[in-house]
């Protein structure tokens, strides 16, 4: 691997570096992210992961606070339905995120800036695909309204 090769996914067209916050549940999606690492699956470096015990721990206030502080995109990743270590947590998350998507629209945020994804401990490649796609979506949407974008 020659390290002098320029990374293909450098910052968006006009140097815009998206800021993405990812909430991962400890048992499934965080383990999936780890497996992506163990398998050396490369992906764009503009996301920062925060670990919680269950995706249901993600308080709507966290999402709003992150957008307020300038996040361009937020991804909440939990276990597949029926996989949840705490049995039913992810059902609650699904309902909360659906509600939040409607809410952020009212602040002029494109709902695609908030994304929910089920990722199991064995789905390293799915984590990579999700991060890559989500970064592209945010690149297309450009900076968040809070940072002067659309």
């Amino acid at each position, binding site marked *: 691997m020659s390290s002098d090769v320029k990374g293909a996914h450098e910052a968006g067209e006009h140097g815009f570096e998206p*800021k993405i916050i990812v909430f991962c549940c400890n048992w499934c999606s*965080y383990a999936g992210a780890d497996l992506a690492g163990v398998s050396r699956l490369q992906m764009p*470096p503009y996301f920062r992961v925060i670990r919680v015990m269950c995706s*249901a721990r993600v308080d709507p206030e966290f999402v709003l606070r992150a957008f307020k502080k300038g996040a361009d995109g937020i991804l909440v990743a939990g276990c597949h339905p029926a996989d949840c270590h705490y049995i039913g947590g992810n059902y609650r998350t699904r309902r909360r995120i659906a509600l939040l998507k409607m809410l952020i629209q009212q602040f002029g945020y494109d709902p695609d800036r908030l994304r929910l994804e089920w990722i199991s401990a064995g789905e390293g490649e799915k984590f990579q695909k999700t991060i890559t796609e989500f970064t592209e979506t945010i690149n297309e949407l450009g900076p968040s309204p809070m940072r002067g974008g659309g």
Partner: protein
Amino acid sequence: MAVTDKVGAVMVVGGGISGLQSALDLADSGYKVYLVEKLPSIGGVMAQLDKTFPTNDCAMCIMAPKLVAAGRHHNIQLITNADIAIVDGQAGNFTVTVRQRAFRVDPTKCTGCGSCAQKCPVETADEYNEGSKVRKAIFVRYPQAVPLVYSIDPEKCIGCGICSEECKAKAVEYDQKEKVFEIQVGSIIVSPGFEEFNARLKPEYGYGVYKNVVTSIEFERMLSATGPYFGAVLRPSDGDIPEKIAFIQCVGSRDEHCGNEYCSSVCCMYSVKEAIIAKEHGGSIKPSIFYMDLRAFGKEFDEYYNRAKNEYGIRFVRSRIAAVSEDPKTRNLILKYTDNGEPKEEVFNLVVLAVGLTPAADAETLSRVMKFRLNDDGFCQTGVFTPVETSRPGVFVSGAFSSPKDIPMTVAEASGAAAKAGTEITSARGTLVTKKEYPKEKDVAGQEARIGVFVCHCGINIGGVVNVPEVMEYAKTLPGVVYAEQNLYTCSQDAQERIKGKVEEHKLNRVVVASCTPRTHEPLFQNTIKEAGLNAYLFEMANIRDQCSWIHMHEPKAATKKAKDLVRMAIAKSRLLEPLENLTIKVNQQALVIGGGVTGMTAAIELARQGVRVHLVEKEKELGGNLRKLHYLPSGDDPMEHVKRLEGEVRAEKNVTVHLGTTAKNIEGYVGNFKTTLSDGKEIEHGVVILAIGGQEHKPEGEYLYGKNKDVKTLLEFKEMLKKGEAKGKSYVFVQCVGSREGDHPNCSRVCCTGTMTAATKVKDKDPQADVYVLFRDIRTYGFREKYYKEAAQKGVRFVRFDDERKPVVEDKGGKLEVKVTEEDTGKQLVLRPDYLVLASGTRPQHDAEELAPMLKVPMTKEGFFLEAHMKLRPVDFATEGVYLAGLAHGPKFVDESISQALATVSRAMTVLSKTTLEAEGIVASVDESLCDGCGICVPTCEYKALEIVAHKDDPKKKMVDVNVGLCKGCGACVGACPAGALTQKGFRDEQILAMIDAALEQSKKQEVK
């Protein structure tokens, strides 16, 4: 503990899901466990599975936490890559010689980073993926393997020396020799699992010759996200997605000429599951399953089978495949079979052989070394009433080694065997278990945060991409950080000593480690700072390897910037961390067993033998339950004789108090602190509850003239007549699946097929001329019970299959019975005039199940049986801690299965009763009384029923919510739901997470990349 010659340790042979469960139960009940596994890492076949039926759970998601727990448990010693050489001594005191083959890697130094394997120039077939992927000569079986230690394959390694050069932890030891251990143990549990039938022994299917004929385990790997095609279903011949897939059942099972007459019990279900998952992966895939009898006999299995048929459109063809041939050009496969009598040929793109389960590879050696008998099929010999005992006292068995079985039954047997192993040496409990001593915890309350940051190189895995010195220097600039350093391996032994030294030297009250994933390493560092006198929760990790350097290898600048952000976020949270202490709950050492059938009695006796005072409550006047009504058992043992023996043992056991004719009126409290008032007014306090209220035979009122014609009997009623010799008739007709697999009872009752076989054979024995008909939909005599089906057929019992839409019609022609039935294959209609019509009616739950469920706050299934915590991995536990479930109350099952479950509940209960206090979870929810107004929105969010609305502390008129620390698992779902923000989760407080969010998005100038 009394002075005893017993040894307080157990050896578990075989590290699959069965061995794992036994080891965890025993280690949590005060015994030292030696888990011996012949492969380099534990996990067995289940670790190879993608999803598991019937819940479609990802096998790795539910198994990984158990693997990590076993790997780190201070009472479990893993001895992998090892075999049993010699066993001598007797029950209670064995001396076992174990030979451990050389890893050629030092397990204490290897961090599992994998740099060696990346550079090893030798490639070979990867057995974990059944040869469909490549692995190197130095390898680990799979990424989540426990112990995560690489080992060198002696045949393949050419000794070039690159791996030891690449290993910066200097862990490779080429001259490592084989080790021999001599271990004293009290009991042994053998659970070596099974060997998959070698499909090459059925040449007519072309396995190994035609590329597109694969075995079920190979197909399972194909489905798995860590499999060869990352989860895509592709034809091995040319990589195309197969449109038509054929599953051929009973390959190497129910088959005389390859010597396996038994049914392997699980192949029908895993084929249905694989068909469903294949459909999910590739929408255009059309699976067809060729079977003789579709044996979906387990809990919720039939529902799963119906969803496969109706929801997923999977085609089921009842026919045995004669032969498979290949079209050389397209590599498609042509299947020859008969359907409704006429021969057919059909082309498929892929064929999956549902291979059966044969005895474990080392069954011979184990039985020779440990001197226990194998049955004539080569599996371990067990008895109906001794399902987890081998013929050698002190040596117990669980899992597929005694008979082919699915995971729920395996896990139950594993806990059952653990119970038996525990009883054997109960006098030596706790003698060999070490309790870790920690120095007095420093009081850091009120102190200003003094944070120590340790940034790891992990050899070159982090240091090769992220500029570690730069990250360390940056960490020093952050507020609150008083010390920062970099290490080659922060998780190494010497680094732990350094950390403890620095905590002392710089009076640190927070520690942040920037290295790899907290999932595997957080407990290690928490333990280290605890040894330095710091509360374990004053610790935070930043994952700058698996989620930074490894996935941004070609952008060192961006990776370094991200690493700094992650370190800044971890430090931001660490500033707000507070010491948390794990609350302890005292445990009342008594147990309540509800239900005095074979299950209840077995559980009560076993608990008593482990020193527990048991209250056995039975609503009837006498003990014995359903066992009294069975009269015959397929194996020929006499049920009444066992009832009497059990009753005698219960009476003799002074630890057991029997309450006949009583029921439980009210049960309050939680694990360790239950208080129950019985119907006779007595009040008993106990720590655990075992629900064994059994089930009852369904009385099919109004069906097939039951209740209207005296000659129409249920199976148990008929068996009673047989017992009393009242059955005099010449012609008998049995009708199967009465009240089962239809309507709101979609599931199979599991036992009636075998019951009918026993009764039919008894009739034929008494009068060979009698004509006996069995009208059935599927004959589900699974496992070794297949031989009863064969025996009945050989004795002239006639079997007529009817379609579930066209059930037989019974009419009363002047007091004589007339049964009309259309045979499914031929469409011919038969008219029978039996003297007796026997209805094999299903098993239904007890009536009083509805009253007990709310008392214990435990859920029920649609059919009214109790719903366990997890169908696969916690079959006898409830989600609510301290309440356990066994026998027919869980669902229809055979006597030996009930006994296994009964023993399982004992083992599960002992993990609680063996302790005087229970340590609750640290990161539990907590309520701020001032904000909570008792609206109760949070209560339904808690699956563990840990929240309750109680009178407000300060003002009894008002209400508030109380968190039961014993039950709370720390998931935080309630915290997210609380509108008033009154609830919070210790260790993951809102302010802490918000601080991380702010740190992540900070636009500080300082950290732009130099």
